[in-house]
Every structure is written in structure tokens, then in C-alpha cells.
């Protein structure tokens, strides 16, 4: 492998890793607060992609302008799911929560399949150069934008949780729900908000993905497993860990794509996953123990 190819795939991997991180940050927020491993995160991301696609297709809206739309839409869908379904599952065993979110995924994915057909759809962004050249390396503009957004959102979320009242209430709930409710935090409301934010992050990730990734009803499936890997890698409940984990997975996948033939690059993700599960289930960066 030439040095140029190496650095090119390294850059591609880092940029893609930002998106993985973004999906995973939502997942880890939901886990941190509610201890729910949300299988539906990929399906929610897919919905975000469709919000952007339809805004583009029907109104000619620039994909980046539909960002707030998909965030708000997914926030309410997420909060609604929490209110209607997952709130009732608060004390159910792990596997039942996984199954419920799996059922939601099946439902949402196939609803999209029925409504939107299995066609692969794509959007284009006007007025942007496709790539930027830097030291002989080509950087995809849309991927770079997605990455920058991902980093800013992760940092923004970090400060939101540290500085705002709702953020502090979310953290209090995730550390000790009973204690938080004793000092006047409305746990149920916090759960809706946290789940809503988690879903909104998935929606944002979806929107950022549309300019360089095909939109289809099953697109979430390939992302959700990677998001799990990223979350476990970064340590469940650890935001910055999720971003770093995302980048690690993105890079290992990109390098795997160069080194391994066919679709064997996907093997990297799962092998890393199993190794981490077996050897360091609390993640590379410690994170919360179960």
C-alpha cells in the first residue's frame, strides 16, 4: 500500500467515523439515561434521511437546510416512542427491551418499504465543489461537512449536559434516577427529552449522510450494528468515547477496505466488536460499568 493510498483511506475513514459517532452518541445518550439499548436508532436515522430526501425532491430544498426539520421531526418521533412504548418497559428485562426496539425497527423499516418502495434514492448539493485537494489528497466536501457537524454536535451536547438545567437533570437521572426524582426532577419528562434528543441526533446523522450515501428503507440496518460497536468501544454512556470509537471504526473499515478483498472489510467491525465485548466490555475508555 502506497503512502498516498494509506493517507487517503485514513482521511476517508476519519470522516465516515464522524457519522458513526453521531449515530452512536444518540444511542449512548439513550442508554446512559434509560439503560435501554435502542435497536431502532438505525431506523430513526433512516427516517431522517427520508425527511431530507422528500424536502429535496418535492421542494428542491438544499439538504443542509432540512437539518433542523429532520432534527425536530425525529425529536418528536423519539419522544413519542418513549412515551407510547418504552416508558412501559422501564422494569422489563434487557432482552425484552431489545426485542421491543427490534419490533419497532421491523415496523418502521417495512412501513418505509411499503410507502417509499425499495428504490435507492439520492440527493445532490448545488454550489459545492465535490472534493477539496490537500497535499495530493482528495477530501469529499460533503463528508467533511458531516464530520465537522458531528464534532460540533458532540461538543455542543457535552456543554448542554454540563451547563444547562435540563442537561444537568439528564445527567442526574442517568446517575441516580431515584435521587434525582427526590430533588424534584420529573424523571418521565427527562426520559422523553433524552430519548427525543437521541432520536434527533440520529435524524441529523441521516440528513448529513444523504449527500453521499443512498437513501433506502433498509439503510439503517448496516449502521445500527456499527453504532453498537462504536458505543461498546467508547464505553456505554460515554459521549466523547462514542466519537472516538466512531472514528476508530471508520478508520479500521477504510483501511480494511484497501487491504481486504470484496466486502471482507465489514469483518473488521465485527471482529473488533467481539474482541472488545470479550476483553474490555466497559469500553476502551472505562465508561460506566453495568
Amino acid at each position, binding site marked *: 500500500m502506497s503512502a498516498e493510498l494509506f493517507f487517503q483511506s485514513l482521511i476517508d475513514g476519519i470522516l465516515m467515523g464522524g457519522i458513526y459517532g453521531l449515530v452512536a452518541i444518540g444511542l449512548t445518550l439513550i442508554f446512559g439515561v434509560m439503560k435501554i439499548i435502542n435497536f431502532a436508532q438505525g431506523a430513526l436515522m433512516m427516517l431522517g434521511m427520508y425527511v431530507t430526501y422528500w424536502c429535496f425532491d418535492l421542494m428542491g430544498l438544499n439538504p443542509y437546510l432540512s437539518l433542523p426539520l429532520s432534527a425536530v421531526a425525529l425529536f418528536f418521533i423519539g419522544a413519542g416512542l418513549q412515551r407510547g412504548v418504552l416508558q412501559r418497559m422501564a422494569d422489563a428485562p434487557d432482552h425484552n427491551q431489545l426485542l421491543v426496539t427490534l419490533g419497532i425497527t421491523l415496523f418502521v423499516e417495512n412501513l418505509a418499504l411499503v410507502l417509499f418502495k425499495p428504490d435507492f434514492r439520492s440527493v445532490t448539493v448545488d454550489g459545492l465543489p465535490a472534493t477539496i485537494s490537500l497535499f495530493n489528497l482528495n477530501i469529499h466536501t460533503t463528508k467533511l461537512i458531516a464530520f465537522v457537524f458531528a464534532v460540533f454536535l458532540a461538543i455542543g451536547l457535552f456543554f448542554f449536559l454540563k451547563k444547562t438545567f435540563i442537561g444537568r437533570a439528564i445527567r442526574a437521572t442517568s446517575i441516580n434516577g431515584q435521587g434525582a426524582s427526590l430533588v424534584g426532577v420529573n424523571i418521565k419528562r427527562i426520559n422523553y427529552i433524552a430519548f427525543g434528543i437521541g432520536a434527533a441526533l440520529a435524524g441529523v446523522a441521516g440528513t448529513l449522510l444523504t449527500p453521499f450515501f443512498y437513501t433506502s*428503507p433498509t439503510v439503517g440496518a448496516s449502521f445500527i450494528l456499527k453504532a453498537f460497536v462504536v458505543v461498546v468501544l467508547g464505553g456505554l454512556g460515554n459521549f466523547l468515547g462514542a466519537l472516538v470509537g466512531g472514528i476508530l471504526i471508520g478508520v479500521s473499515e477504510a483501511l480494511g477496505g484497501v487491504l481486504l478483498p470484496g466486502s471482507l472489510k465489514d469483518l473488521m467491525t465485527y471482529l473488533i466488536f467481539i474482541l472488545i465485548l470479550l476483553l474490555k466490555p466497559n469500553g476502551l475508555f472505562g465508561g460506566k460499568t453495568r
Partner: protein
Amino acid sequence: MKKSYILYLIAVVFIALFPLFTDNQYYIHMGILILYYALVSQAWNILSGYAGQFSFGHAIFFGTGAYASAILLVKYNISPWIGMIIGAVVAILIALLIGFLSFRYKLRGAYFSLGTLAFAEILRIIVQNMDYFNKTLGILLPIGSNPLMFQFESRITYFYVILVLTIIVTLITYFISKSRLGFNLIAIRENEDAAQSLGVNTFKNKMMAIAISGALTSVGGTFYAQYLLYIDPPTTFGNDVSVSIILPAILGGMGTILGPFMGALIIVPLGELTSHFFGGFAGVHLMVYGLILVLVILFLPEGLVGWFQEKIRLRKLKKEGKANDIAKT
């Protein structure tokens, strides 16, 4: 006790006579599907329902059974009857490997579920990338009429084959549930640490559960391949396969003998009906499956059989209560 045995026997005879009542090939096909789903779900039930080790990746074993028999038949002209046994042995080896890694390193709860999911994906990717397995093209199996090669001219024969296989798997599950192994598994499900402190070798028992469950699931995979005569990586190792294996047991009742049957009896016709009425829309039946999954877990977490058992128990308690009241007065 004996009365219930007679009831089961009557039920089996009734099912066995089913092809005599109808010569509609479609109904017989549905019957085959019901029995086949009952079989794989029952096999899953041993590990996940009884032992409480919730596998999300049973496609691992299903695909192993399907591919083992198909490869042996197409490449080496070995009968799928033998392929079924070899597939089961390979499935046991894979199960022991996965079990060793998972249980040795104490993967529990959702972590075990996600781990099995990842193992299934690994197998899918490997099969998809190896020329030996025909990559993404899959394997087309020959049509013939040699029963020794698992080829039957009549669908009714397939029906009886799957009936016998399903009865065998059910009996195995039944005897396990009444054996020391079964009690150990239930103890592990209820509280693993407590079981261990009472002297149950949890590692060994879980290894046995995953090996048996894997081997029996692979038998279902072999039947599937030889009945449909075509397999490819997503339809044998895909996530959808794992979900369809899980669903009947969840709906019917995990950790019960009748649960997977009840579940399959409802799921299969429901899936066929929705496909029939919404044939133009691919995916409607999966939407229905998703909805069922959510509703069952929300409102019937013990499944149909569990729900019935609870009702019967409450009724008995009521009766006893009344008897006590009468005795008091």
C-alpha cells in the same frame, strides 16, 4: 398427568392426518411452514427460553445446517440425510466455540444477544466472500425424486418428514426440561449467581444448552435448504432469519414446550394472509411481525401459553380459596 399425554397424542394424530383432509398444495405448504417454524423456534427455546441466554443470532446455526447439506450434496454428491448429521456436528462445533468465548468471558444479557448477532454477521460475510460457498450467488439444489437424496415427489412426504423432525425436537426439549440439565438451565435463567453458589456448573450447563440448541436449529436449516432448493447468504445467515426463529417462541411463550407451536400456528397463517391481501406491497408481513413483537412484549410478556397457564393457576387458586371458605364455615 396421563390425560395430558393422551391429549398430545390425539393432537399429533390429528396433525398427521391433516394431508388427508385436503389436497390443496398451498395448505400443505402452510402446514410444512408451521411445523418448520415450530422446530427452529423450539430449538432456540432451549438456549434462550429455558437457559435465558437470549440469542439474536440463531441464523448462525440455521445457515450452517443449510449450507452444510447443500455443499455436500452439490459438490460431493453426499445425501442430505448424512449432510443433516454433518451439519449438526459442525453446528455443535461452532456453538461450542461461540459458547466458550461468550460464557468464559461472562457475556450476559444484552451483551450476549449483541455478541451472537455479530457472530451471525461474521459468518454471513465469510460465506458471502468465499468462492467455495458460491459467494453472493447462493446455491441452487438439484430437483429429483430419490428419497435417499432427500428428494420427494409429493409435498405430503415433505410434510411427514418435517412432522417427524419437529416431534423429535419437541421430545428432546421435553426430556431436557424434565431432566437435571433442564432444572439447572432454569436455575441459571432465574439467577445465575445463585445457581452457581448452589453448586451448579453454569459454564458446563450453558455450553450443553448452546450445543443442543445449535445442532437442532441446523436440522431446521437443512430441511429448509432441501425443501426450497435454493439458499443464499442473506436468507440463511441474515438478521431476518434470526428474528423469524425467535418470533414464534416469543408469541407462544418462552420456556414452554407448547409455546413455539402456538406461536408458529399463529404467525405463519398471519404472515401468509397479509402477503395475500397486500401482495403488491413487499414488507407488509414484516410490519405485522414488528407490531406483534411490540404488542406481545408490552401486553403478553409471558406469551400466549404463559398467559393461559396464569389464568388456569388463578382459577385453581380461586377454587381452592372458595373450598377453604366453605371449610371454614
